[in-house]
């Protein structure tokens, strides 16, 4: 019996990140960033940063209303990467210090949430 892929073909390398980083709402993506470990963030960023351009290019070919379940997961991974990239690439070792203040911020509306 074959196990159905969680992501579109070509993006299998990101499958292991789906449970933690496939998140549907911006406010929850921020919280996931703030509640994650440096190792978890670094692993996800290292695996996803070079794949993201191809993922967005592929997803750009159709509106989100036509996404398959796998494509929706990939989109949500890309949106989580937007947060995690800032944590890893910009904040780096200062992320914990940064998170101490960011926890007071609430995302109340997001254009990226569809």
């Amino acid at each position, binding site marked *: 019996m074959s196990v159905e892929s969680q992501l579109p073909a070509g993006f299998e390398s990101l499958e292991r990140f789906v449970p933690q980083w496939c998140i549907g709402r*911006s406010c929850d993506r921020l919280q996931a960033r703030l509640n994650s470990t440096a190792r978890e963030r670094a692993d996800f960023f290292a695996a996803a940063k070079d794949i993201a351009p191809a993922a*967005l290019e592929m997803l750009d070919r159709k509106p989100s*209303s036509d996404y398959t379940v796998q494509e929706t997961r990939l989109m949500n991974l890309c*949106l989580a990467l937007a*947060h995690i*990239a*800032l944590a890893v690439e910009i904040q780096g070792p200062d992320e914990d210090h940064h998170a101490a203040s960011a926890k007071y*911020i*609430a995302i109340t509306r997001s*254009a990226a949430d569809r």
Partner: protein
Amino acid sequence: MTIQTDTFQPVAKEDLAFVGTEPVPALPYYDPHYFDLEVEAIFRKSWLQVAHVCELPEAGSFIVRELEFAHVSILITRNRNGDLRAFHNVCTHRGTQLVQERAGKRALFSCPYHKWTFSGDGELMSAPDFERFYIDKSDCNLVELPVDTCAGMIFVHLDPEPQMGLAEFIGPLAERLNTLTVARATSFSEYTYEVAANWKLTYDNFQENYHLRFIHPRSGEAAGGESNPFGYPSHYGFHGPHRTQTIWSNPDPAVKPFQLFAFAEGVKVSIKDGLDMSNRDYFGIFPNLFLLGNAVTPFSQCIYPISVDRTRSVIRLYWVGDDDKASRRFAQEYAMATALDIHSEDRAVIEAGHRGLRSGALRHIQFQSQEVLCRHLFNEVDARVQRYRAAQREGKQHEC
């Protein structure tokens, strides 16, 4: 004006001295009595931005906004003719707050207490057993507030008869505001946070770059450069009570690889949307609104006082373009998260500033020339407070 040079010179302090050079009194930044005067002299006497037209897209749309500093709840509706109306969110029977929801769409608003029912134009349409009252229905309409728009933003005024209209209040800046993304935005992202600090301390943090390299050494790294390590603006403008700065265009910003990719996605979307990619203006609209003209991160920040030592910031990134393509959503998410990172980094130091001043240790605070916008805000605030005080002393009707 954008200066693209590696021999940047900040605006000379001699050229900014006309705004003032003396130390500024510390007490107004934490004194409860001064705050009460600000509420009366400024926040009840100024046009206040509370919403955007895209929140009321069609007839019957409504929103509710709370202005805690005045204990006021405001109901804004779009009526059958497409006009905006603003009312105190208060039933005219016995004062019960009329609408509990923050937003929605409906033709009628019924008070939960005794079912007095009002139209979107504020007219009392029906009231059970009304014959037993001693008044006419026509005297029971909702209490209306002045409302107007500029660049897509909805402003209200708590004075039923403002001394000047919104167009006069904004003045010539309206033309520049109308070129910004906000003027034709169809959606927005929003985040909020509260700070245990006075509203002026909160506001001031966002109108000086002196602190950037110390508080934002990573997130603000691209803002400064070798010739302009503090990332000072290339220009300041003073427009009545309002002020502007033109953000320095760093010719060689330190940008990380993924950051560059994400920014490029935002640029592509912005170009597709026909946005002005050269705009680097940052607007401070009196008393409590900021707007950044940048096309990729087009944010506004409205700083609402809650009390003398508590302030709420509402940050919005306004968007145009109606497709929901992946690259657009990604660029919007990255832009929002970028702005959020910077705002979160400021929070602790703003609160530390308030704690220090509240201790009473200082009688005055110092502003250098590149903090001129902070000084300008204080000047504008204090002039209104002193006029109000004088009018109070003389027992006259306040004329701000």
